[in-house]
């Protein structure tokens, strides 16, 4: 019976799938590595030829150029490294504040987009369609050149309640600053906030588990009020003072100044990204089907509870990943600051290239920094996705 199975014949190498796949592995590796090697070869040749330095030693040399705005102390005698740091902080500043504002604005417009009020709904559509179909750079130019650069001169400043002064040189805000004893107040304020959040979460969970009323609302709000109040009196009744901008000569002194560049990039990024966030929000909420809400109502949950317990958690699951990618887009888009003169990471990088003549190392630094921001974001996103998947099982 086994007669028709001959001894295994030897397979020629060129027909053996194992050798074939090994060969493709090797050939493809050679092609890819060869390309990289060729580029590296050209690179070393050209850098040697032109005497381009690849070292990072220049980072400790004095930068020698001024930076118009900086949250951390900086002057031109400080190093290139410090200047780079200033740029990074400026990027983070505009990104973080932009993300907060864009989220708030995006939520409002997204909800307006879902509103049953026809007119309100159309307004949201107009806003979204306007912003989604024009280039961000053009929007930034409009905000910067057509709005912030057209503000009245210092003499004729627009005065808003606060007082806030708005003029060609920027936005001057009345800003609360801590007095010498202010740290006590600040500490207790933060402590109260943390405790309130903790109490809220723990008590809500206890309530969900035991079904007993735990008075989480009054307790959390009580903590939120009592702690800062103690701090206020411990600080002697005056923990903060208001730094009011005053007109001195041709300019405002004191207060908190935001430059027109910062204002334009912040407003531009916020309004642009808000349109995309609004679409994300709308998509997320619409995806939570009507049936879900009806089922929850049928179980007897109140309307506010339906929203809090059923719709929002499920919508969040859909909303969060694209929302985070919008955050990442905003951060990357902040590099357009260069075009209107706000000195972010990329703009400082470019000045450094001109000043120090070190194109390659600076470029690597700038790109690696942006990459790190992206990686951190996708890392957070992955953790979130994993948690969501865990919940689903």
């Amino acid at each position: 019976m086994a007669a028709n199975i001959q001894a295994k014949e030897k397979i020629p190498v060129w027909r053996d799938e194992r050798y074939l796949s090994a060969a493709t592995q090797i050939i493809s590796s050679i092609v890819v590595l060869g390309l990289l090697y060729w580029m590296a070869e050209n690179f070393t040749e050209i850098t040697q030829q032109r005497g381009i330095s690849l070292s990072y030693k220049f980072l400790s040399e004095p930068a020698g150029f001024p930076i118009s705005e900086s949250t951390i102390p900086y002057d031109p005698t400080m190093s290139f490294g410090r200047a780079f740091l200033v740029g990074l902080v400026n990027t983070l500043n505009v990104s973080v504040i932009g993300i907060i504002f864009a989220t708030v604005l995006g939520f409002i417009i997204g909800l307006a987009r879902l509103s049953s009020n026809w007119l309100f709904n159309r307004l949201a559509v107009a806003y979204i369609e306007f912003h989604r179909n024009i280039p961000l750079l053009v929007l930034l130019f409009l905000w910067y050149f057509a709005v912030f650069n057209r503000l009245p001169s210092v003499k004729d400043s627009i005065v808003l309640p606060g007082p806030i002064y708005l003029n060609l040189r920027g936005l001057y805000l009345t800003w609360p600053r801590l007095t010498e004893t202010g740290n006590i107040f600040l500490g207790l304020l933060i402590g109260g906030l943390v405790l309130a959040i903790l109490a809220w979460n723990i008590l809500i969970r206890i309530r969900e588990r035991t079904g007993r009323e735990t008075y989480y609302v009054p307790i959390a709000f009580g903590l939120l009020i009592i702690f800062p109040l103690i701090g206020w009196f411990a600080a002697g009744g005056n923990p903060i003072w208001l730094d009011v901008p005053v007109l001195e000569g041709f300019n405002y002194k004191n207060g908190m100044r935001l430059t027109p560049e910062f204002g334009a990039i912040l407003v531009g990024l916020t309004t642009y990204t808000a349109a995309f966030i609004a679409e994300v929000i709308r998509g997320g909420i619409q995806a939570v089907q009507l049936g879900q809400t009806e089922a929850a109502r049928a179980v007897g949950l109140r309307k506010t509870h339906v929203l809090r317990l059923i719709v929002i958690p499920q919508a969040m699951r859909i909303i969060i990943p694209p929302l985070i990618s919008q955050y990442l887009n905003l951060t990357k888009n902040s590099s357009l600051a260069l075009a209107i003169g706000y000195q972010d990471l990329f703009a400082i990088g470019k000045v450094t290239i001109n000043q120090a003549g070190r194109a390659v190392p600076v470029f690597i630094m700038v790109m690696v920094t942006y990459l790190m921001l992206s990686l951190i974001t996708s890392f957070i996103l992955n953790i979130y996705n994993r948690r969501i998947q865990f919940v689903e099982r």
Partner: protein
Amino acid sequence: MIVKPNTQSPPDPPGPVAWLIKNLFSNWFNSLLTLISLSIIYFAAASVLSWVFTTADWRPVVGAPLLYLIGQYPRDQMWRPGLSLWLIMFLIGMSWGVWEKYVKAFAIFLAILLGIFAIVPLETATITLGVRAAFLINPVLIYLGYLIGKNKIVNGQHVITLWIFVSSLIVLVLLPGFEGIPFLPKVETTVWGGLLVTLLLAVGGIVLSFPIGVLLALGRRSSLPVVKIFSILFIEVIRGVPLITILFMFSIILALFLPAESRIDRVLRALIGMTVFSAAYMAENVRGGLQSIPPGQIEAARAIGLNNFQTMVLIVLPQALRAVIPSIVGQFISLFKDTTLVVIVGINDLLGIGKSILGSDPEFVRLQAEMYIFIALIFWVFSYFMSQASLKLEKTLGVGVR
């Protein structure tokens, strides 16, 4: 009382008053929203309209219409972009005939716009009667193309082939020209500009990034470790950094990685930058399409004897790409808007032309609002038509899978 069920016909559509109450004034909150919206609309419309027709100074916008279209392209060689425009309009007309649903609105809009452009009373020396006549031919060509495209013999494949052939002809032969040919002298890309460059970068970027993106997507799913790692690194690095850094890299740093003697044209460098950027996103889109192919399809292809390559080309890719057409259109819209970034590396695209017109005359310095609103409008119109077409496409693809 017995309520008689109305089984004969659906309830009558609500009258205008009922509609108003239901949609605008159903309760006090709704009414408040309506009032807020009305006041926003009133103030916005009033201030915009009064600005547009009284305060605004449109001289920089209307002063040099040809600059927006072709930049500094030599005026004695105008027939070349002009002929290109004719060819493209004819093809748009044919596309309208073949894909009526998606292209119709855009084609009609273009025809009207070009017609208006031909007769509008602009007082400039560049717009001669000849130029006007040439423009007036465009709507005619669109309609002619439509009539031909509507014919049963012409199908989508023909039109796509024509598009590829004609656009390569325009970009590689007609516009750049050659050294030493008298009737087609070389025109350096440094003088190209305006919408010509914007469209070249956007269309060129998406078309060139398509094969690279498909290869990267396949590479990312490949079982070959080196290919896989390279693809992942490429995709993630490009997607992790802003486009502007990539454009800078290709305009400054790329030269360091190529043989010392090679010199690449500035517009071409920007195009390479756009292509590389777009390829990474294309790869992720295509990968999504590949993931949507059930493994049974590949098994069936193997079982009937197709080899790996045939399986990929005949079975997997056609289905995967069909599934990602809407997202590719979306990507094209973003890329089209992103072309404005080349201004930062000193290329005169549409936005760059706008900037240079503002800088050309001291009187124009304060007229940025007019200029940028005009440019925003151009981008808006293009993007809006494309996204509407894409929405329709998504719906038709969503209905019967075929």
